[in-house]
């Protein structure tokens, strides 16, 4: 049985779509791992809703990538038939769920970026990306609202919840810098007005994060060393396990229809 890993011709636009799609898929998958494990039924509903939003974003972006690449790939081939080295998501996205605080902080840090980012992307010169952004913006706005409320409650809740939230902030902080990076391929798209420069959202992200962490009585870490590599396929060890689980059927039965 031949290996069925695909090869992708990563033009700047395809690469851009895969990066954003991978962010959304990996986080959507992580949120789906909460199913049956949430702290309350109400919160299970919320986590699943966020997961479904992100899965939807991933599917739109993969579908557009496939259209642009025009090499016979589709959403499932991108999701199920690429190895970890071919995944382009942020390291932040693949961080394991940990406890509820870790998950909430991960989603909060991302949503605080994604909300203004997708809002700005609605002005993309690419109508498909603008349409995806319009949908994603509303979803991200709610994710930001919901996770921010939880950050406040966990930080300013009990001693235990404060400790857990502070640990989550400290653990995830070094993975937040990668969101604002753009390599040469992305700079090309930025120059053409197709996508927005992620660096331009840093000030707004800083402001949101500072305000919410302050209200949560959590300390904002000092600027320091930031991890990166996800965008070029250099991942933590966690992603491989996630993909092994996610891709098991597609890998075991190549070319089957499900």
């Amino acid at each position, binding site marked *: 049985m031949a290996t069925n890993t695909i090869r992708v011709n990563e033009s700047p636009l395809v690469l851009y779509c895969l990066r954003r799609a991978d962010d959304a898929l990996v986080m959507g998958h992580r949120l789906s791992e909460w199913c049956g494990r949430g702290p*309350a039924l*109400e919160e299970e509903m*919320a986590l699943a*809703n966020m997961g479904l939003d992100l899965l939807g974003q991933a599917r739109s972006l993969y579908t557009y990538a496939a259209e642009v690449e025009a090499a016979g790939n589709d959403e499932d081939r991108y999701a199920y038939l690429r190895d970890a080295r071919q995944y382009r998501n942020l390291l932040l996205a693949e961080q394991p769920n940990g406890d509820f605080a870790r998950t909430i902080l991960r989603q909060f840090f991302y949503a605080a970026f994604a909300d203004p980012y997708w809002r700005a992307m609605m002005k993309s010169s690419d109508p498909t990306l603008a349409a995806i952004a319009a949908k994603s913006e509303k979803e991200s706005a*709610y994710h930001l*609202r*919901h996770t921010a*409320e939880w950050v406040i*409650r966990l930080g300013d809740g009990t001693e235990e919840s404060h400790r857990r939230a502070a640990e989550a902030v400290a653990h995830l902080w070094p993975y937040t810098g990668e969101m604002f990076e753009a390599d040469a391929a992305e700079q090309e798209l930025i120059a053409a007005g197709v996508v927005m420069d992620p660096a331009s959202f840093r000030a707004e992200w800083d402001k949101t994060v500072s305000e919410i962490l302050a209200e949560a009585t959590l300390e904002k870490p000092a600027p320091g060393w930031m991890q990166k590599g996800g965008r070029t396929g250099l991942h933590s060890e966690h992603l491989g396990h996630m993909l092994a689980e996610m891709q098991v059927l597609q890998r075991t039965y190549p070319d089957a229809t499900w």
Partner: protein
Amino acid sequence: MTKTVTPLWEVFIRSRNGLSHKHVGSLHAADATLALQAARDVYTRRGEGLSIWVVPSNAITASDPGEKGMMFEPAETKIYRHPTFYEVPNEVGHM
């Protein structure tokens, strides 16, 4: 084993067709903000609503079913409050 008791809220939703808010169910949440978000996540997953109210269940005062007769029956005999009580000739047209 269960230490924390989370308060109960009643959820009212105004659906798309411009009706008034209608009771749809209840849920548990620690405070009003979380209750509103939970109501959104639990009760509007299929586009059922445009507006949500949440009310602490213990803030609702209900009529006593045992007093149904006193409360509601007196209204049943006041048929002159309904348009069909009055006769208007057909020639007059719709009124």
